[in-house]
């Protein structure tokens, strides 16, 4: 069940906080670390004790009165949800050919998602997940608690990637759920066929959200090590182009650079920072760098 958690990565990053930036007035109040300080400040409600809840949270006075276990639930300091949006289109199936045993982008994304959500869960935040492909959108609504996180992992294990990224209009209702007080991580390769991904991001970031873009790239894309006559096939459209790879390298690298520039420009307009992760590099380092950079940006 926890196959998406790499012990080494976890050991490295588990104590780093996931910090949401204030993107709107009064909307996010600094760090969401309520859970680590014990109970919340403002009392919200009692609920019945369930196995797994820490004993420290049991209201013993109430137990003395009613002879039943109740847990005090506090109003969250910052009522935000962490959404992990996973691009489940076919292009995420890309594996680095030069490193045949390495993960595909999708596999890497699942590990990344599992680890990030663990951190979120540990902070006491509500973590939810949305896996998007044109064929199906799998929504796992945000909630807190370790059990919820385990269910999320189960859900994550069942995910499959395929088809293209969905059109934003088709998932309008889903997007609306994301627009409310949330920190949205978009894990994708940021390849789109028309403009569907940009539209999605535009709409998501239009709400009360902070969007974090995590772009996955691989060595093959960055270095273009191919030579000779190669038939390149698009994972999503199936379109094939036959080129002499040796001469196409320069064109490819230029085109990739241009694509990245456009992406960065677009995201900057949406006030979104882009973090690019090479899936052929160790994940612990990438995640560590990502979290540290967010911490710095916060200060």
């Amino acid at each position, binding site marked *: 069940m926890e196959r998406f958690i790499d012990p080494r990565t976890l050991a490295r990053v588990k104590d780093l906080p996931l910090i949401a930036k204030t993107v709107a007035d009064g909307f996010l109040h600094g760090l969401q670390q309520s859970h680590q300080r014990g109970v919340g400040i403002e009392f919200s409600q009692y609920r019945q004790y369930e196995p797994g809840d820490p004993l420290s949270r049991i209201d013993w006075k109430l137990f003395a009165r009613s002879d039943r276990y109740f847990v005090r639930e506090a109003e969250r300091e910052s009522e935000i949800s962490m959404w992990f949006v996973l691009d489940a289109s076919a292009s995420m199936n890309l594996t680095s050919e030069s490193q045949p045993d390495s993960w595909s982008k999708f596999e890497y994304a699942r590990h990344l998602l599992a680890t990030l959500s663990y951190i979120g869960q540990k902070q006491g935040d509500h973590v939810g997940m949305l896996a998007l492909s044109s064929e199906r959108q799998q929504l796992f609504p945000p909630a807190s608690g370790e059990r919820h996180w385990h269910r999320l992992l189960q859900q994550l294990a069942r995910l499959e990637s395929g088809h293209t990224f969905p059109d934003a209009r088709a998932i309008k209702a889903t997007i609306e759920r994301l627009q409310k007080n949330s920190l949205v991580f978009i894990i994708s390769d940021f390849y789109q066929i028309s403009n569907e991904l940009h539209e999605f991001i535009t709409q998501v970031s239009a709400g009360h959200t902070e969007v974090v873009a995590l772009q996955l790239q691989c060595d093959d894309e960055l270095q273009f090590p*191919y*030579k000779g006559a190669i038939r*390149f096939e698009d*994972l999503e459209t199936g379109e094939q*182009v*036959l*080129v002499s790879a040796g001469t196409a390298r320069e064109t*490819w690298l230029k*085109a990739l650079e241009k*694509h990245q520039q456009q992406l960065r420009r677009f995201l900057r307009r949406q006030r979104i920072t882009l973090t690019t992760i090479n899936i052929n590099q160790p994940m612990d380092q990438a995640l560590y760098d990502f979290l540290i950079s967010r911490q710095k940006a916060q200060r």
Partner: protein
Amino acid sequence: MLSGLSVFSPVGLWALIALAIPVLIHLFNRSRGRLVRIGHIDLIRQARRLRVTEVKLAQWLLLLLRLGIFTLAALVLAGLARPGLQSSESTTAYVSPAWLRAVPPAKVDELLGRHERVLVLQPESAPLSKDLLNEIRQIPPQTSTIRNIWPLLADRLSLEHHGGAVDVYAVDLLAQFGSSRPALPTAVNWNLAQPLSAADSQQLPGSAVVAFDMERKQDAEFFRAALSSLKAHRIPDLTWEMVDSQDITPQQLNSDWLIHLSANALTAEQLDLINTPTTVLMDATGEPPKGGLQYVTLPFYPFSNFRISGQSQGQNDAQDIVKTTDGTAVLQEQTFGSTRILRFNSRFNPQWSSVTQQAEFPELLLHLMLSDKQQNLAFNDARIRLSQLRQADADQVTDIPLPRRSLQSLLMFLLVLLWVTERWLSERKQHEVR
């Protein structure tokens, strides 16, 4: 042009079956470029697209190169050759330089009138004009320049396929023909001139008599073989008789050479009957000595062992020609008037010596029997007879391949060239795939 090509060993053409190998490689290896899946095709779209033909071109080129290599290898094995030079139907005359010098100018004019092409028998000869022919005549003759024309003629005839008749003009000196004469691929009309006076040739011995005891018939046969060899190669006019030593007539005693193989030496009466210049060769009488073999060096006989007769000591007035290391005379010469007597103190018999069985025996015999002057004649001015020249008749020609020139070196060069190109192209392709 291709139709004229032929192969030395058609079996080699079976190697053409190997052509299937590159074809199979091509069929199994055919692909239109390696397939690589990428996330976003737009990024590669601007790159120049390769047409399928461009990819295939390299593969087809490789196939062609490999087919070429195997074809060339098969042709090398089969020994591809193109036809030799083909002359027209005109008649051709080959002239030896010695002939040009030996004949009067009128003969040369006549020669030029009769033949459309005249070539001098010397390496790399081209058809000659009258002026050039006359120029060659002016070159002063040297005794050593009489060239063996036979290999030149054989080369020329195997290189050029003559449409018309071939005439060869030469002098009848044996030196022009050499001792080894391979069959000529083309029938040749011989025209032999006799440059020296007839008197000179008469100084060579004409008749020989081999007189032998009946029990030494085997030994006499060695002499018969040696004499026939000398007739063929040195003294064309030589004749000989084989007689029982009992029945020898006075006339036979007076032949040029008398070879006497008998248990009894020639008697004084018999020697008196000889009144013409005669060379007599006789070997030892009596029984073979008990002693072992003795080592003697004879001309042409670097290693020979002889049993020397004990009776030889008596001939003290004779001149010793060959002695053993301990001073025993092996060969002695005596002269009685015009008669030379050569005594061989061993015998021309395998039990005594191996002289007669050795290949050089005719040469040794000539050396012993001829005087120095005669030897000069025999070696330098020996004559040939037309009948001794083998005519290339139809039967002989069938075994001789038609004139053709091998293309091996050209084929090998092309083979190496194709191979290097194939390796280069193939390695390049391999490198690109990785």
